[in-house]
């Protein structure tokens, strides 16, 4: 109840942010494990990365208000996520050209 009271009082506690990021992260994990399409898996990865971003920002904001490292890390992560997406999309396109499919279940050649 404390949390709700605080929210209504205009003060959003850290647990609320962390709850959101936790849900986002495990939604990403679940998506990564259960989706068949590689595009969906990519989106799941983005979800996990964004959950991490939120954590960076929130911890910086609440625990070390005078510092900026967390924000910078969040910016870094966004940039890296963008690069990673570009590379992943390129890979997925190439896989599609070769296999005419983006089903991750078909991709088991690497074991040999």
């Amino acid at each position, binding site marked *: 109840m404390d949390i709700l009271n605080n929210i209504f009082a205009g003060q959003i506690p850290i647990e609320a942010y962390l709850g959101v990021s936790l849900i986002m992260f495990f939604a990403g*994990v679940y998506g*990564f*494990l*259960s989706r068949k399409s590689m595009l969906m*898996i990519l989106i799941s990865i983005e979800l996990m990365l964004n959950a991490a971003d939120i954590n960076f920002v929130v911890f910086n904001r609440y625990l070390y208000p005078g510092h900026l490292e967390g924000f910078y890390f969040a910016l870094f992560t966004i940039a890296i996520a963008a690069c990673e997406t570009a590379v992943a999309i390129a890979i997925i396109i190439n896989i599609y050209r070769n296999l005419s499919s983006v089903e*991750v*279940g078909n*991709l*088991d*050649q*690497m*074991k*040999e």
Partner: protein
Amino acid sequence: MQYTLLILVLPLLSFIVLGLVDSKWKPKVAGTIGTIVLGIITALSYFTAWEYFSMHQVAGVYEKVIPFNTVWIQFTEFLHIDLGILLDPISVMMLVVITTVSFMVNIYSLSYMDGEKGFQRYYAFLSLFTFSMLGLVIATNIFQMYIFWELVGVSSYLLIGFYYTKASAVAAAKKAFIVTRFADLFFLIGILVLSFYTKTFDFGILTSGNASVFAATTGVTFMGFSVLSWAMALIFIGGAGKSAMFPLHIWLPDAMEGPTPVSALIHAATMVVAGVFLVARFFPVYEVQTPEVLHAIAYVGAFTSLFAAVIACVQTDIKRVLAFSTISQIGFMMVALGVSGYGSHEGLGYMASMFHLFTHAMFKALLFLGAGSVIHAVHSNEMKDMGGLRKYMPITNWTFLIACLAIAGIPPFSGFFSKDEILSSCYEFSPYMGATMTFIAALTAFYMFRLYFNIFWGKEMKVEHDHGHHAPHESPLAMALPLVFLATVTCVAGFIPFGHFVTSDRANYDIHLDPMVATMSVVIAAVAILVATIMYRKESKIPGTLATTFAGLHKAASHRFYIDEVYLFITKKIIFNNVSRPLAWFDRHVIDATMDGFANTTQWVSLKIKGFQSGQVQQYAYVFLLGTLLITLLVLIF
């Protein structure tokens, strides 16, 4: 005398070049290389002998010269294995014998082995054999001798099995190797026991006559005999294996499966006398420390000699007759060593043994090469395929006759002199021993002339002119030349004052013939020859009648007194069934099974965990996630 090292190195080089460098040479080139190398080392050996016997005599005694010696393996301060060259009268004498016979055999083989498959391999093996045998006789210590002893065994194996596509040759090679190897096991044990107590391998120290070397062995006994007796007896068993003493003689008759010149070189003149040489090398130890072993050697030698002589009387394969005659003659040498004492006159037997070794090597090589010449002409080993060959092969006939007279002990051929000395020393030992050996000498004369008449006289062999058969012909020059040379040596070797060169104490000794013994042995030999002449010169019924009269003895002797069968019974029925098979079962079902168990378990586990490597990214991620959660949980709990 550093150059003596060359005598050892050159044949080894020749073996390496012929055997390993290139196998595509023309046979003529390979044969020439082998023969020339042998010629060089023969010349070197003669020069060594001349230099040694003319220059290295100090106060009437030949000194031991060690021109080359190097420590090979150092175990302790005292116990080390050396490689070196020891020159003393017997080793120099052996150098001359080995190189001479080997050279003759090399020349002879140029023609005899002409056109055989593997001609170059043959010459490579001959070089290897010569190298090993020379290394054996010049060894400075017993371990070096043992190394070359084994090398000799290997090269003998290779040469007996030269016709490796022939099952009987392969079996004979295997038999020779296994039997001699079995004896060598005892030899090795003997060496180890001896060196354990004396702390040395060196012949110079062991045979110095200094009793303090054996001080550690006093009072140590095993099963009623002193440990030194055991060591020397075990060493003799090694020698008995190589020298085909009863009951380890079974390999020698079969070894005749090899090419005939090989038989002449290895199984008549050189390798088989290695055992005699070994006993002679250790003679001071045998004589002073363990006379009972020396006497045992005499009895073993005498029995072997008699045994082999009886068998030789009924064999029909000419090479086997010669093989048994070789066994018998080596028995003579062993007896002479066994009855000998140490010193000038007491050492007569020693001198006689070495003398007989020398003369026997020459005339027995001659006999084998002559037999090879006959086999070359008639393409058979069996007496029944021969007869009347004297008309076709005059040189072989005459040289063979000279050798037969020599081995029978008829003067003035070399065998008479050496055998006479052996008989004299036997009579001095005990009259019974002397009488036995005289009887064996008579048997020798009889079976050699049985052989001679069956080959060159007797019934005329049938000469067929069809199907490419041709009349027997005299052998070509390369084969006749060694025959003539060896025959010449046989004629003159008896007049060598051998006592001036080789004696037990290395001092001069003048040989004097004992007229009683000499007359008796000549008369007996002459009678034996006469009997053989009556029985075999012309076709006669006497041999057949005798064979039926003494049917049991004849049959037993033809089957070599069933010694091979006894061996087969012991090995196959007793050892194989009761020891080897259970051991094999244990090996297969316990040791192998354990090892297989490891392999099977590993395979089973890997099959089970193979599923992890599915290649499915999501599965990996799932496992990764579970692992992470597990670790987190563990961190939280502890």
